Structures are given as structure tokens and as C-alpha cells.
């Protein structure tokens, strides 16, 4: 029987959901390895990986999590977790931060995600909202090294010939260097004449 699970939960948001489900996991003697949670337009959603010392019935885990809240409140999914190796293409990739904004209209996310998929670019993180008719998307992408970044950006801008969207694609290091005071670049330093070698 399995010992490692990936668990996802969706429900209307309220205080106490995380406390309840983590208590359920702890009572079964489980340990949470990784967790990501967000609230979107009043809906709570979470994904986490849990490992147990002893095997646990998936049904038992699901029941314990559901019972941590009111009956029928939580939609829960429990799957066995196998540690995944990253896909070969993704190992030779750099992270980029994509932002898209402009007037809201149907199909923005579909068009851009379909394009990215066609270029084998993986979306690791995605956040978008509409405010006052203006759409904003921010995503973290894994871009294979062989792709020309400027072409990606202009291709994406060209996805909306009818009315322009502004697309920005910044390498993660550029994003961090320009927005984080504490950013430190890790590059090897060349030997300097007159400086004792360590």
C-alpha cells in the first residue's frame, strides 16, 4: 500500500480550512513535504504532498480530510505520489517571467497557453485577473535554451492583431535583479593580478 500522496482540496473560502486538513494529516501520522494554496474569487484551493511512515489507505486519508470540515464542504482528491523526474527538455531551460496586459476579451489565456505549448514552454505558475476591464496575467515559464526569447515575445504580441496586448518576457534573473534589492548574481570571478589565490 502506498505511503506518499498528492492531495488537492477545493471549497468556498473561510478561516480554518488549512488548520483542519493539516490536523487530519497529522492524526494519521503524516508529514507535509510541500504545499501551495491560494484563494481565487472567494474559492479556496490547495495542493500538497504528504508522506507517511506506514502505508495508508487512500480512502482513509480522503475520509479524514473530508471530516475535518462540514459534510460535503470540501472537494478532495487523493492520488498516489511518485517523485517525478523533470522532463528532459526542461532540464536545459531557463525561467522567465511573462506579463500580458491589455483590454480584457475572451480567449486570452487559451491563445497564449496554446502558443506556449506549441513551443514546448512549460507554465510553472500562473496568475491572472481582470480589473476595470483591464486584463493582467503574470506567469512563470520554463523556456528551453534553444528558443529565441525576443521571437517568443513578438510571436505572443502577434497573437492579438485585432487589438494590442502588451507582452513582456523577462528572464528570471533580470526580473529578480531589477526588482529585488538583495539580488546576488552567482558567476565565477576571474583571477585578478595581485590578488592572492584562495
Amino acid at each position, binding site marked *: 500500500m502506498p505511503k506518499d500522496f498528492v492531495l488537492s482540496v477545493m471549497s468556498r473560502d473561510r478561516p480554518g480550512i488549512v488548520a483542519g486538513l493539516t490536523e487530519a494529516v497529522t492524526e494519521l501520522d503524516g508529514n507535509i513535504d510541500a504545499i501551495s494554496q491560494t484563494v481565487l474569487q472567494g474559492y479556496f484551493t490547495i495542493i500538497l504532498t504528504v508522506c507517511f511512515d506506514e502505508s495508508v489507505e487512500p480512502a482513509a486519508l480522503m475520509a479524514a480530510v473530508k471530516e475535518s470540515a462540514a459534510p460535503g464542504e470540501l472537494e478532495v482528491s487523493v492520488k498516489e505520489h511518485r517523485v517525478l523526474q523533470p522532463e528532459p527538455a526542461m532540464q536545459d531551460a*531557463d525561467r*522567465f*517571467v511573462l*506579463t500580458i496586459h491589455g483590454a480584457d476579451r475572451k480567449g486570452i489565456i487559451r491563445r497564449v497557453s496554446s502558443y506556449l505549448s506549441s513551443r514546448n514552454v512549460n507554465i510553472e505558475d500562473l496568475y491572472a485577473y481582470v480589473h476595470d476591464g483591464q486584463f493582467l496575467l*503574470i506567469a512563470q515559464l520554463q523556456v528551453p*535554451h534553444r528558443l*529565441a*526569447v*525576443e521571437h517568443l*515575445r513578438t510571436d505572443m504580441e502577434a497573437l492579438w492583431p485585432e487589438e494590442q496586448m*502588451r*507582452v*513582456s*518576457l*523577462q*528572464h528570471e*534573473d*533580470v*526580473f529578480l*535583479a*531589477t*526588482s529585488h534589492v538583495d*539580488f546576488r*548574481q552567482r*558567476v*565565477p*570571478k*576571474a583571477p*585578478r*593580478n595581485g590578488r592572492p589565490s584562495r
Partner: protein
Amino acid sequence: MVQEENLDVRTVTLGISLLDCCDPDIGRLCRKVALKITRKAGSLVRVCDEISGRYGIPIVNKRLAVTPASGLVAGGSEEALFQVARALDRSAQEVGVDLVGGFTALVQKGMTPTEEALIRAIPRSLSETERVCASVNVASTAAGINVDAINLVARQILELARRTADHDGFGAAKLMVFANIPEDNPFMSGAYLGYGEPDCVVNIGVSGPGVVKRAVERLREQEPDADLGEMADQIKRTSFRVTRVGELIGREVAARLGVEFGIVDLSLAPTPRVGDSVGEVLEAMGVSRIGAPGSTAAVALLNDAVKKGGLFASSSVGGLSGAFVPVSEDRALAEAVRRGDLTLEKLEAITSICSVGLDMIPIPGDTDPETIAALIADEMSIGVINRKTTSVRIIPVPGKAAGETAVFGGLFGQSIIMPVRGVGGAAEFVRHGGRIPAPLQSLNN
């Protein structure tokens, strides 16, 4: 919030010391120069292209800066210096960089015979090569102003312009005359590798003025009540980001080449492209007629804010690090000159609080050498007294008068030829020659 700024790196300039190429035989010297440049810079362009592609940040120019040629040649003749210029030109073409700076003499206190030979070799050297840039440091705060050198250089400027008359005197665009020349400036035509620099070093010129212009425009759109302090703050933050990108790319290039990283130069360096103009930044700030009263104050705010942001972003700042106001290379400045709003006198005033100096300014081809010398002497005085770098890059356009157009093309742009007032009015003064003594450095009023 990620800003959509189209950031770029203006220039990656590889400084290469040629001191170990010194040789009494000029042929051997030139061969050693070629070998060293190929060895150190052979992969510069390729590495820059790869890093640029990987980060999605364009690197606009790749250049070289070398040890002053006047220091390489023992007891050099004009012919020998010309051979060095040709060797530098060939090497630059071979490694694929667009310009190489370092045909340089440092004569602020006096000159050696070799330095005099270099200065006299400038007209031929710059008119018969493509990519070589020259500079002459004629003044410093510590030494004073060498008016003999200025008088000599003024004549070379005219001769160089005459030799390139079919291109509106363009040869003179490859020569700059300096006070307090920096040793690590990555921009041309003044780039050279100072004697205090390492054997091989990467120096960076950061992104262009368009980024700053858009930041100012954004501020005025989103906060119409913003005052000048808030405008300075916006420019400062933008400069922080721009500098961080420059350093990021620069350090990568240096690491890949296995050489030291030197400095980031914070200068706002325009090109004639629309949107890439320092003048347009001033317009965005609310100076609708560049050259009108208020222009100097606006440049002072801009220049200072750029430096403050850049200095926080990086601890390796150097070069010129001031806003450039090169007339023909800046669309909005050239337009202000055409309209008559921006005069030589106002440009000179602006150089007292920022910038490189009187830069890329076409003047009438029949301007006499004493007037050119006097123009240079004025600009050098500003630099020497104010303990800053100033320089002069003026182009006497053979056969053309004020109001006509000089066309240099490409990144060098074009402009109306500017009138020079009071021609010859200080001829006797400069003809005295000698040295204007070094200034007092206290009692500063």
C-alpha cells in the same frame, strides 16, 4: 509589478592592455597587437550574442578599448603611429567589433615627441581607417590646461575634417578632446584603457534613454500631481533597474570570457532613433523647447537622479556616468537646434552640470583654428574648475555654412550646422599658448 521596459545594454567594451606588445620594431609591435586582440577578443561578439539571446536583452554594440597608442611606440614617428592605427583597425574588423578606442595621447601637462607624433598622425590615421577612435586629454584639474596642445589639436580637427570632406567632415566624429578623461569609459570616441586598469576587463554602457522617458511619461499619466521630487524618485528607480541589468549582463560576459568585470557606466546615451533620445526625456519632463530657460535645471535633475539610482544598484560604477547631449545623435536635440531653440552657448552651460560636453556638433567648415581652440579651451575650463570630465567633439563641415545640414549617417545621425558667435574674438588670447595653471581646489565660489 513587472515594468514593460525594453531594456538593452548599450555597449560591452572589452578593454585590452597592449603594454606587453611594446616592441622597438613597428612591424613586430603591430603583429603582437593583432595576436593579443584576436586572443582576448576573438570570442567577444559570439559570447555577447549568446548571452543576449539567452536573457532576451539586446547588446547593441561590442567595442574595444586599448592602451594609449602613444605609449606603445618608442620614439615613434607619425608613420609608425599610422601603422598602429591600421593594425588596430584590421584587428577590430577581424574580431567583428564596430569601433576600437585608444588612439590616445595624455598631454594635460606637456607632450612627448611620440605624443606629438600621434596628434599629428590623427588626420591621416582616422581618415584612412574605419573603426579607430582617437582621444587627446589636454587638461586636468591637477595639471591645468595645455593650450599648446589645444592649438595643435584644433588644427588636426580641421585637417581631419578636410580629408573627409566627402562625408561632411565625419572623420572629426572619431576624435574627442578631453579634460579629466576617465580611464574606464566604455563609450566612443573617448574610450581607452587607462594605465591603472587590469590586463583585460569588461566595461558596460547601460540601457538607453527610452526607458527613462517612458518611466517619466508613466508617472505623469498615473500621478498628474507629481512634483519634481517625485519625478526625480521615478527616474532614480528606473536607473536602478537599468543599472542592475547592465551589471547582470556585464558580469556574465566577463565570466564567460574569463576576464575581470570592470564597471557599469550609467550614462544615458542616445541614438538618432525615435524614442531613444535624451531630448525626448526632457520633453517628457515638461521642457517643450529644449534650450529654453529651465533646460539646465531639468538636465541637472535628470543627471543626478540617474546617478543616485545607479550607485545604489551597483558598487562598480565608473566611466562617464552622465547624460550625453550629442547634438547630431539625438533626434530631439537636433530638432531643437534646427528650430533655433538650442544654441552652442546653452549647450556649454548644460555641460557644467552634466554630460560629456560639446558633442557631435557640426560647425561651419570655414571656422578658423583659433576659434576651435577657444571653444575647446572654454569647455576644458568647465571640466577643470568643476572637477569633472568634459570633452569636445566638434565637426567643421567643409564647404558648408551655418543652417545647412550635415549628414553623418547611422548612429552618428545628422544635424543643422550650428553658428559660432564671435568668431576670432579670442584669437590673440589662445595664440599666447602655454598652460593655464591648475586651479585652486578650495575657496570654491
